[in-house]
């Protein structure tokens, strides 16, 4: 079962570099309501076990993880992705800005080939690598 399996750690070049877990104290809570069911962007799997699949990004806070109960479930058998909150993508409707937060899990997150430390802004066309999966971020 995908959900019970432990996350497999992989070695990524530069893994010994210090990495900062994102501070999510200021982040709005992911409460799923009608208001937050608005699709604002998408993530397309361009490489890895789930190649060709697509996941919507909703308004508000989106949890990204391997388990099916994540808002953005990457549930296609890549066990190098953590079950819960490997990363968080948040859309702020007040300024139209997207940010990605590192969930502080075993395998680091990379954005455009750079290791994510803390959080950073996301722009249209950015590539996100989580475990063995590469995603392309596209605005709606």
């Amino acid at each position: 079962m995908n959900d019970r399996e432990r996350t497999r750690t992989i070695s990524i070049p530069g893994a010994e570099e210090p990495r900062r877990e994102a501070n999510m104290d200021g982040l709005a809570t992911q409460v799923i309501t009608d208001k937050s069911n608005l699709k604002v962007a998408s993530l397309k799997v361009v490489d890895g076990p789930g190649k060709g699949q697509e996941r919507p990004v909703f308004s508000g806070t989106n949890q990204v993880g391997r388990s099916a109960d994540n808002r953005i479930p990457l549930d296609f058998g890549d066990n190098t992705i953590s079950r819960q909150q490997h990363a968080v993508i948040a859309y702020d409707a007040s300024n139209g800005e997207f940010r990605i937060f590192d969930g502080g899990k075993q395998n680091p997150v990379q954005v455009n080939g750079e290791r994510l430390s803390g959080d950073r802004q996301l722009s249209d066309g950015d590539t996100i690598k989580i475990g063995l999966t590469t995603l392309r971020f596209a605005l709606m």
Partner: protein
Amino acid sequence: MGLWLVIGSLALTALALVGWFAARARREPVPIMPEAQPVTHHVTVRPDVAHATELRLDRSGVMNATVMPHPDDAPLALLEFDDASATVAVRSPENVIGRHTSVDIRIPDVRVSRQHATLCVGPGGAFEIRNLTADRSDPNPMRINGEHVEHARLRDGDEVDLGGVTFRFKQAAHGLRTGASRSERHP
């Protein structure tokens, strides 16, 4: 003459004795009713259950048990998380559960509100959980054993769901109820 001397010395001895007894009585008054001394029973409690300091029997026969949360090794309750396969020890009688780094019991999951619930020992001695987001326009739900509630008294084995994150509540102290202190009639 000799007889008078004997009588006189006897009288003096008697007076001295009376005086000595009187002085003694003044120093140590004879108790009318013996004062009840507090009896301290030291009990051994498993360190992982609770840290009982002492049981005291006062003069009216009321037993006071003081159960103190030990700072290092005596959790009052345990929260068992399935997802993270982690167990959190509850050591304080008053706790805030949430995602924020300043809370007592931190659940680093964005589905959990920054200050989501309070977990406090109620007047009955049992832990009570209260949803802090209940009054908000978008309340973040709390479920106990699958039922949507805002306030509940927790029993051993209850399953709590905060915004989708679940944990099982385990009461650590069985024989001695948790809390600052309690009194009960000694049999």
